[in-house]
């Protein structure tokens, strides 16, 4: 592996890096506000924002690591990486730690490692490898093959049970397939089949998940259960109005009417304190941020890199879509964080690593070398 030369630094997408840093900064600030109340508690000081800063530093290190090597090496290790991930997922039921009734974590001593987070990286590497092998639109056979590869880790994650992450893995792969393109025959078939499969998914859902869907359809049916979250987050966001209540000024979130405000519902705090103007700004930043990945996918030197960038695009796209959709009351409540804004160790590190991967692709777009 050659050392980083200057051309690489010049060609790197600095704009994307800046946007990621900006988002992370906004996230920490928001977290400071959201956990402010706890700071006064005197008895249980939970300095979420401090921890988040440390995660960010670790993420930055991860990002550098993901930039250093030539991303095309990932092609060679794609399959070993895949099987290691599957093995780790297999180990979870035995070696895993149970938190909130679900076994998802492996205790590495200094922190709890979530194999499902690794699976999200793995799926876009293996997806990029398989999908970039040729360029014909996908027929049934190939599509089936790709999905079997995706279903193995996804199924194991769903069984943990972590429906959110499992679907996330499938959605990332699904997005990459759409990016690649399908034959019209496959496309038409799927357009008919998928809506039919949705009721089947209902059978596999846990009771609490069903409750969430029902309460989404009708929040008033369970105003203190799952519907409570939606109602409260709508009040918080809506009451922010045009200019917001100002930093640290959110009464709804400050008074702790808002549940899980530092994790999945972080955007509600933001919306309350910064109003429509702030929300639009954040939304715009996210869109430009996503667009930088499209640019990277477009300009990549090879298809593998292009698919990697597209994979990362979908990784972030689905999270933003689902999290915002949920907090804004457009979707049922599922536990998916908002990238960089929500508190979370593993997620923050993975987010930065994936940015590193996109930067890796973008800065090597002019390097002519056979991989």
């Amino acid at each position, binding site marked *: 592996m050659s050392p980083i030369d200057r051309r690489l630094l010049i060609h790197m997408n600095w704009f994307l890096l800046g946007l990621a840093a900006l988002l992370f900064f906004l996230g920490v600030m928001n977290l400071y506000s959201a956990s402010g109340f706890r700071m006064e508690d*005197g008895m249980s000081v939970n300095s979420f924002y401090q921890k988040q800063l440390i995660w960010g530093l670790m993420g930055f290190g991860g990002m550098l690591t993901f930039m250093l090597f030539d991303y095309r090496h990932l092609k060679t290790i794609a399959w070993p990486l895949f099987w290691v991930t599957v093995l780790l997922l297999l180990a979870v039921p035995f070696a895993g730690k149970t938190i909130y009734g679900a076994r998802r974590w492996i205790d590495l001593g200094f922190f709890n490692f979530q194999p499902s987070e690794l699976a999200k990286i793995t799926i876009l590497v293996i997806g990029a490898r398989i999908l970039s092998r040729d360029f014909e639109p996908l027929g049934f056979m190939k599509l089936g093959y790709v999905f079997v590869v995706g279903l193995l880790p996804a199924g194991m994650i769903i069984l943990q049970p972590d429906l959110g992450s499992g679907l996330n893995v499938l959605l990332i792969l699904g997005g990459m397939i759409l990016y690649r393109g399908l034959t019209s025959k496959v496309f038409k078939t799927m357009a008919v089949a998928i809506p039919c499969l949705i009721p089947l998914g209902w059978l596999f859902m846990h009771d609490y998940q069903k409750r969430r869907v029902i309460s989404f359809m009708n929040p008033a049916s369970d105003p203190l259960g799952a519907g409570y979250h939606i109602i409260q987050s709508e009040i918080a966001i809506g009451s922010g109005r045009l200019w917001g209540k100002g930093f640290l000024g959110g009464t709804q979130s400050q008074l702790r009417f808002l549940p899980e405000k530092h994790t999945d519902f972080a955007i509600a705090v933001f919306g309350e304190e910064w109003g429509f103007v702030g929300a639009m700004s954040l939304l715009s930043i996210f869109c430009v941020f996503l667009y930088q990945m499209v640019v990277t996918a477009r300009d990549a030197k090879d298809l593998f890199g292009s698919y990697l960038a597209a994979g990362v695009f979908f990784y972030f796209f689905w999270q933003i879509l689902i999290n915002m959709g949920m907090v804004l009351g457009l979707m049922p409540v599922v536990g998916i964080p908002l990238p960089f804004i929500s508190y979370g160790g593993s997620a923050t590190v993975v987010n930065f690593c994936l940015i590193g991967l996109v930067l890796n692709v973008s800065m090597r777009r002019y390097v002519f070398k056979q991989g």
Partner: protein
Amino acid sequence: MSSLYEAKSQQPPKTGLLLLQGLILLLFCVFALRFWFLQIHKGAYFAEQAKNNQLRQDRLYAPRGLIRDRTGKLLSLNEPAYALGLVREDCKDLEATLKTVSEWTGEDLSKLKETFKKSRKRVKPFEPLILAPNLTFKQVAMIEANALHWPGLEVVVRPRRQYLQGPLLSHVLGYVAESGEDELEADEDLAVGDFVGKQGLESVLEKRFRGVKGRRQLEVDATGRRLKERILSPPVAGEDIDLSIDLGLQELGGKLLKGKAGAVVVMNPDNGQILAFVSSPSYDNNSFTSGLSQKEWAELRDDPMHPLQNRVIQSVYPPGSVFKIAVAACGLHYNMINPKDTVYCPGYVKLGKYTFRCWRRGGHGDVNLEDALVQSCDVYFYKLGMKLGVDRISDFAKKAGFGELTGISLPHEKPGLIPTRAWKRKRFGEIWHPGENLNLAIGQGYTLTSPLQVARFLSSIINGGRLLRPQLLAGEPAEEQGRIPMTEEQLKIIRKAMIETVDGPRGTARRLRMKGVVVGGKTGTAQVVKLTDELKKMKDEDIPYKYRDHAWMASFAERDDQRYVIICMIEHGLHGGSGAGPVVKALYKYLYAEQPKDEGVGN
């Protein structure tokens, strides 16, 4: 350089790129619109909601199911009790608030802090955390008067268990007390400060008694003041439960055992229902509900009369002569006795260098089985014991329910003990000596039984051999656990001997005689220690209490279709007949008295 074809193949998919850009546009449009709708279009509405009306959830406590006796008389109900709750989110200065609570309640500040710390994670946002579970009226008044200054504090009203008869039924009902760490861990429905059944039926039937908490929606303003409330789901009261206990009979039993240590069980031999269940002395189960102090607890625990001990099922005693019924039955079962055959009792039996004495020094002369039971002749049973041996006796005793749990739905029952060769080898590393068969046959030695086991056994003698599970709930169907291996003919012989024990001129249970009622009985005097010669010479009243013999009376009675089995056991009561007999007699008198018509319950 790559070929033209390869170059083409390396082009990213055009439509794919368009798709990604389209998705970004879609994302922006949908969410921008939604933000606009929430924040601009409905912004004023939500701002108003945020300012004025904040929704909270609150729980409504479900009353515990009531307990009644078989005639419908209330044994326990729920009264309102007041607890001090802290809503963390409304509380501005925690330290100062806790200090105030400490002043009001007299509770140690560091202890309050610990309660807060422990409970914090178990309390949902805006739910009151119970700091003091039992407030006096004076404290309630003070807190209500000062509530304005301490916005986080509130008085929480919850139903509290009250036991109307206090100590009388403590050993059956048990008690409730604040749930401990383990219970909270194991049971999701429990919150800090909730009461749960800890003993007796309260603990066994916890799930049925408990009910389901309700939920209430509260609208409060920004300072936490309540504006409106709406019941989302009303609390569901726990199940009411009728016991098989007859309160009047129980009261009488309690009165008769007052000042004594002992137990009384009244059982219906046909269905296993327990009509009276007295363990004396007892304790007041109400004291646990209102929180027992360390000192009160220590006093109860260290009381030499052991009021916490459930003497019906937890205390096991040597059965003494009562056990002769079982040994006689065993002899009949193995065809080792012809009821007509007589044994000569000279007042003792010699075995090797040991002499085993009959309780009657002068001997009983020639006795057959019936005579032996009626007069409780030891020699007859020594000889029978030698013939049967430990293996047969212990095997039969187990089939008769001795040494085994009765399965009554109360916790901490003790099985007692029926010795076997294997048991002795394991316990003492010794072989079974022939002389021990003699002791075993008269209910002395290692044998230990609980009064309830004796009641179950005797019921089976009355009901045709069915070993029934003792039932404490009214209407519970009879549950057969096994059968003693005897024919109706053999059972009849035992019953006749027991009736003769009451009716016969030489019977030891003559006190039980009643007009118009067939009564059978068997006395028992169980040695606590081997009396020294010195003690033997003393008059009964002079023997120190702890050396006095235990007194047993096992009995049954029948008139028309009304059948009962009553077992009475008095610790250190000296003689079965004189110590336990009067208690049993008084209970039968109650049971067979002409009862007022409106109280007739059919059985």
